[in-house]
C-alpha cells in the first residue's frame, strides 16, 4: 500500500446542461502506483479530460472518493485544494500556458511564489535547477514568444517539476507540436520518469501514448481498458532515427 500514490473509488462527475444531466464520468476506480507513467487515451467526449481535471484537483467529483498521498481530497475546501495543487501536482498543458511577457525563469518560479517561506535566492536556485533538467538553462531570460513551441513546453515542464510534486499531470502535452518536437518533449518526460517521477498524461495520439508504461482507455465516462504497455518506445532512440534537420532551437531570435 505504501507505494500507492493516488486512488479513486467510484468517482463520478455529472454536469447539468439545462434540463439534461450529462454523465461525464461514471464510477471510475483507479489506483496509481508511485513511479507509474500512465497514458490516458480516449476519443473526445470519453471523459478523459474531466477525469484529468479531477485528478489535478482543478474540479471536484459529484460522488466518489479521491485519495492522494493518503489525503482525502474529494471534499476539501478551496483554500486547501489550492495548496494541494501547488505542492503535490505539476501541470503541463496542451498550449503550454506560460505567462506572456514574463521570462522563462519567472514562469518556472510561479508555483514557488505561492509557497510560503522561500527566499528570492532559493526560488531562483530551484527554478534554474528545473530549467537545467529540461536543458533550457541558457534560455532563462527569454520571453515565451522568443522560444519555439518545444522549448515553451519544456519551460512548462520545468514549471511542473519545480515544486517537486507527487506527480506530473500532462494534458495533451504534444497536441500543439510537430512530430520531432513531440518526441523531444516525450524524451524529457521519459527522462523525468527514469528519475522516479510519476507521470499521468492525457493524449489522443496512440503513437505518443506508446512512450508510456501503462495505457488506460476511456469511453463514455468509463475505463474500458487498463494495460501495461509491452512494446514501449524509447524517445531518444526514435529521435536518433529521425532524418536530421537543422536544429530549430538554434535559429531562434
Amino acid at each position, binding site marked *: 500500500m505504501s507505494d500507492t500514490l493516488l486512488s479513486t473509488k467510484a468517482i463520478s462527475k455529472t454536469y447539468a446542461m439545462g434540463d439534461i444531466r450529462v454523465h461525464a464520468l461514471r464510477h471510475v476506480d483507479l489506483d496509481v502506483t508511485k513511479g507509474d507513467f500512465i497514458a490516458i487515451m480516449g476519443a473526445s467526449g470519453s471523459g478523459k479530460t474531466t477525469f484529468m481535471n479531477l485528478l489535478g484537483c482543478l474540479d471536484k467529483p459529484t460522488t466518489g472518493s479521491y485519495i492522494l498521498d493518503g489525503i482525502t481530497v474529494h471534499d476539501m475546501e478551496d483554500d486547501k485544494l489550492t495548496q494541494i*495543487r501547488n505542492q503535490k501536482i505539476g501541470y503541463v498543458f496542451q498550449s503550454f500556458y506560460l505567462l506572456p511577457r514574463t521570462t522563462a525563469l519567472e514562469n518556472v518560479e510561479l508555483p514557488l511564489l505561492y509557497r*510560503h517561506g522561500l527566499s528570492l535566492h532559493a526560488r531562483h536556485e530551484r527554478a534554474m535547477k528545473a530549467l537545467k533538467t529540461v536543458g533550457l538553462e541558457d534560455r532563462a531570460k527569454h520571453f515565451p514568444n522568443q522560444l519555439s513551441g518545444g522549448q515553451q513546453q519544456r519551460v512548462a515542464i520545468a514549471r511542473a517539476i519545480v515544486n517537486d510534486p507527487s506527480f506530473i499531470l500532462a494534458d495533451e502535452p504534444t497536441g500543439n507540436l510537430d512530430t520531432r518536437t513531440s518526441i523531444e518533449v516525450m524524451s524529457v518526460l521519459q527522462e523525468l520518469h527514469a528519475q522516479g517521477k510519476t507521470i499521468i498524461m492525457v493524449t489522443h495520439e496512440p503513437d505518443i501514448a506508446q512512450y508510456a508504461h501503462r495505457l488506460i482507455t476511456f469511453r463514455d465516462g468509463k475505463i474500458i481498458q487498463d494495460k501495461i504497455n509491452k512494446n514501449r518506445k524509447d524517445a531518444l532512440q526514435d529521435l536518433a532515427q529521425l532524418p536530421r534537420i537543422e536544429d530549430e532551437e538554434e535559429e531562434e531570435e
Partner: protein
Amino acid sequence: MSVLGILRIALKSLLRNKTRTFLTMLGIIIGVAAVITMLAIGQGAKNIVEEQVNSMGTNVVMVYSNFNRSTVRQAAGEGNLLSVEDVQAIKALDQVLYASPVYNSWGQLKYEGNNWRGSIMGVDADYFFIREMTTSRGDLFYPSDVENGSKICVIGKTVADNLFPDTDPIGKIMRIRNIPFTITGVLTPKGQNVMGQDQDDIVIAPYTTVYQRLLGHRWRVMSIIVSARSRDYIHILQQDILDLLQTRHHGTTAEEFVVSSQTELAETASSVSDTMTILLASIAGISLLVGGIGIMNIMLVSVTERIKEIGIRRAVGAGKRDVLLQFIIEAVAISFLGGLLGIALGVGASEALGNMMNWSVAVTLWSVLLSVGFSMAIGIFFGWYPARKAANLNLIDALRYE
C-alpha cells in the same frame, strides 16, 4: 503568499503595460492635481482676506447710528445721533483701550495747479493707534492739535502722488474746499482693503478742525471706532457699548445702533472664501471620481484579458485571496502613484498659477493628505469589484478560456 510578494507581482504586471498604466494613472493625476490646485487657490484667497482683516485690527469695534436708515424722520440733532460725549463715555469703559469719533467728508483738494477729489476723515489722535497707522515721512498729529483745532492733516500715498508728483508734501499747504491745511506727514501705504477700496486715497485731519471748518456742525459723528484691550472680550464689549448708548440716549431701542467688530467681518469673509473653496474643490473632486471610474474600467478590461493568466496562477497554486489582493493592489498602486504624481503636478501648477496670475496660493498639508487618502480610497473602492470578479472566476473555465 505574503502581501509583499503579491505587491511584486502586481507591480510587475503594471510595468508590463506601461502606456496603459500611465494613461489610467493620468485620470488620477489630473484629479488630484486639480483638487490640490483648487484648494491652494481657495486657501490663498482666504489667507489674503484674513491678512487684510487682521491689518485693520482684530480688536476693533465700530459703532454706527442707524439713524439714516430709520423710516421715522426726526428733527436734526435729536435723539439717537452719536456725539463726541458718547465717545468720551465709551472711552471710560473698562475694556476700551482707545476710542475716536469719525467724521467723513468729501472735497476738492488743491495744491498749486493740481486737483484731486478725495475723502477726508476727521478723527482723534487715538485713531492712528486703533488702525495701527504710521507715517512713511513726516509726523502724525497729536491730541494737542485736536484740542486746538489745528488746520493740519496727514495724507495717504495716493493723494501725495497726485497732488505732489514732484515735490515733498511735508510742510506744504494744501487747500481742502479752499481751506488751507498744513501737511504734517504721509501715511505708510496700506494698499486695497477687502472691498477693493484704495486705503491710501485718504486725508486725515483732527476731527475738531473737520467739523468746525468743513462740516459746520459737531453733532453728527458718523461713527465711533473703538479698540478693545483684548480680542477675547470683544463680544462683551460690544454689548456694553450698546447698553451704554441706550442709557445715554433715552427711549432708543437696540436696533438704532450698530456695534460691529472686525472679528465678525473676518468670520463672514472667511466663510465666503470657504464656500468658494468647497465649490472649487468639489468640481475638482468630480474629476478625481471620473479618474477612479477610469481605473475600474481598465481593471475590468484587464481582468477579462487576463482570464487565462488568472487560470494559470490558480492552477499552480494561487488562492482566491492571492488573486483578489493582486488586482486590488494593482488598482491601489495606480491610484497611489497617480496621487503622488498628482501632488507634484498640483503643487507645480499652484506655484505657476500664483506666479503667472499673481494670485496668492497656499498648498496646505491637509489638502495633500486629503487627496492622497481620497485617491487611495478610490483605488480600493473601484478596484474591489474587478478584483472580486477575477478571484471568483471558475478555475476550469478560466484555464480553457480562449
